[in-house]
């Protein structure tokens, strides 16, 4: 699938943007309007909403009193920040040296193949997203993947299958519940 298609799916809706804007003032109150707080504010926003929306970055620029392009410039410089909403399940594959030596790229490829997206993308249903990370510091257990903030050591392509099976079961249960509630 082309990357463009996913991006279309990942566009933030006006509704989402409004919901974010409502919660921003509470976050801003925790920080003084100083430039040195730029990264902590952005981190806090990402922690709350999982990504930085265009509206949120405009609001930050306004709050600190710098231009929006300054905020974009800083945010895009750092690997940590995301500009699209991630999936419900976030998959990070470690590409550190030890993981590389032990075949981390094969693990990443397996995730990509299984989901039909490339690293840095989210599935159109916003269920999964894949990222590569430089090193999570668990080198003795390489290769490593971080799935929903849980570090999984000694990854194997076959473990990837198991993981998705688990998630799909969870998803079915969840959707089943939603249906039950609606009826």
């Amino acid at each position, binding site marked *: 699938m082309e990357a463009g298609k996913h991006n279309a799916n990942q566009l933030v809706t006006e509704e989402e943007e409004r919901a974010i804007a409502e919660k921003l003032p509470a976050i801003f109150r925790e920080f003084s309007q*100083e*430039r*040195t*707080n*730029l*990264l*902590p504010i*952005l*981190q806090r926003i990402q922690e709350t909403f999982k990504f930085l929306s265009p509206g949120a970055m405009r609001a930050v620029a306004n709050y*600190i009193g710098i231009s929006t392009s300054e905020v974009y*410039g*800083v945010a895009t*410089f*750092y*690997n*940590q*920040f995301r500009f699209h909403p991630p999936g419900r399940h976030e998959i990070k594959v470690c*590409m*550190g*040296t*030890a*993981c*590389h*030596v*032990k*075949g981390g790229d*094969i693990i990443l*490829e*397996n995730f990509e*193949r*299984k989901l039909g997206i490339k690293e840095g993308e989210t599935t159109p249903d916003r269920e999964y997203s894949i990222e590569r*990370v*430089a*090193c*999570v*510091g*668990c*080198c*003795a*257990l*390489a290769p*490593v993947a971080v799935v929903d*903030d849980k*570090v*999984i*050591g000694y990854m*194997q*392509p*076959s473990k990837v*299958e198991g993981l998705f099976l688990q998630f799909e079961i969870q998803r079915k249960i969840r959707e089943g519940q939603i249906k039950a509630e609606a009826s």
Partner: protein
Amino acid sequence: MGEGRKDIEDRYKALKNKVQEELEKEKGDGIPTIRVTMSTCARAAGAEETQKVIEDTVASLDVTARVIPVGCLGHCYAEPLIIVEHPQTGFPPICYHSVNAGKARLIVQSYIKDADPAFEYVMGAMEDNELIPPVTTFPRFGFEERIVMAHCGRINPWDIREYIALGGYSALVKALTLEPEVIIDEVERSGLRGRGGAGFPAGRKWRLGRTQKADRKVVICNADEGDPGAYMDRTIIESNPHQLLEGIAICAYAVGADTAIIYVRAEYPLAVKTIGHAIKEAETYGFLGNNILGSDFSLSVRIFQGSGAFVCGEETALIQSIEGRRGMPQHRPPYPVERGVWGRPTIVNNVKTLSYVPSIINQGADWFRSIGTEKSPGTAIFSIVGNVKHPGLVEIAMGTTLRTLIFDICGGIANKKAFKAVQIGGPSGGCLSDAFLDTPIDFDSLTQAGAMMGSGGMVVMDEDSCMVDVARYFLDFTQKESCGKCTFCRIGTKHLLDILDRITKGEGQEEDLTILENLARDIKQGSLCGLGKTAPNPVITSLRYFFDEYVAHVREKRCPALKCRSLTAYYIDLDKCARGCEACVGSCPVEAIFTTKGRKKAIDQSKCVKCGECMTACPKEYDAVRKVSPPSLAPIIERPHEEKVKEGA
């Protein structure tokens, strides 16, 4: 000084006595203690489940035991580890390794309930005794000489009292009763060199900081450990955060700073939580904050989280990022120690450097100098990972040889493979071949060999690692992490990477080898900061020590280590393949394996993604999957016609 030295000492003594009494009371009740390693790596190995099972089993068996989280012992290959103290049985504290849920249940049942230590799971005793062999009889423990890591994995990082009971913060107390110059003298005399990589004498940096005339100065603890393959800063913070805070406080007192910032990388959420908790505890106990222990020295410590940029490990870039800018290195001078964060004199030290300070103040410069070598005193902490049997963290005296470290301490190469190279110092370091195994580990010897101490990451590679691929990997990393300020670093590394990419795909040309060499030299000269100056190191050293491999890739389009995917192929040896065995078919993620007419299996080369799962899945007694380079060596077997029809339908 607000109060005399006597008052500060008395205050501390009273506090220590109180804490010891409290802990003694808890211990004296005879309740067994189970310490579970709960650092990030242990959690990855399942420590959270182990802890839960232990708690559940204790509850269900109706026995009592205290379950305490501890940091990392450094023995990451054996995680999760637990240490059980059962005072009523007369056994010393016992260490168990690889404690999964099942083992945890059995150990609690057998040892806590029935007082039988379950010897089949015991790794060793933590103290010398006559009943159980102590862990120090293993080379992995025995060779080590621990200063910074002495208490790591043994004390609860979430309970300041355990650190105080062992004499923690006594170095700060001692420092507060001395003149700052005396402390700087001691650190200078100890010969402590910055453990962040460059090896700059810590004492000299502090003296420069001291002599700055400014009202407000800042100490920054650099914990932006960005090197892939290195994680000792994380482990130290997660295992003994108070030792670091004590070092920071002593440094701040010596240089005259009132603010300290701990810059931790964002990828280490547990380290951030641990140090955050430790700061609060230290403030409550009066070791940080206003008028520390009643003296007139005050220090506020805060955490700044990095945002995932490797270049921010460089001090000027790190300062930019604290100020809310892109983390781009700046021209020096002025050095941070003259004009750093918010224009104030700033002393930037690494986690390890600061963690050595309390021991140096307590035990003196001469003691520190008695360990290690003349020009690199003390110990070195390495995270040694990759293809060794016992990966993890090792703290050894400087001057130990690479051979001792890799073969004696870490058990040598895993899976009966041969040693090929060791990569030292992260992406900016270099790859050393077996000719360098007898090199002593210290700042100067490693630099001479073409590698560098760096932050202490060490990746051991066996014969299956391709050095061209490894060089390409590091270049890919540094190229992505270049901040883009210097043209040579920004475009030069990209060009280097493109060439290496081509070579690993079998598209390299003869002249590429000379271009690599020249370009690498130019990038080193044309870059401002350490990232660009060292980025070509992996290429330079691998060209120097593994030139044959480059030649094989370029001239013969062959990868001798069978690593580069474009230059290798898998096939199934029909003579060895067993009829009816389907192991490989099930393992293949892309359905590239099909059944031949003789009911044996073969690989469709056009579909194969070369993940190697079939090779792992093929039962040992058949051992039928082969890997070859160049790919033309793999026999081509056509997929039977009916298969194709079925697939189309």
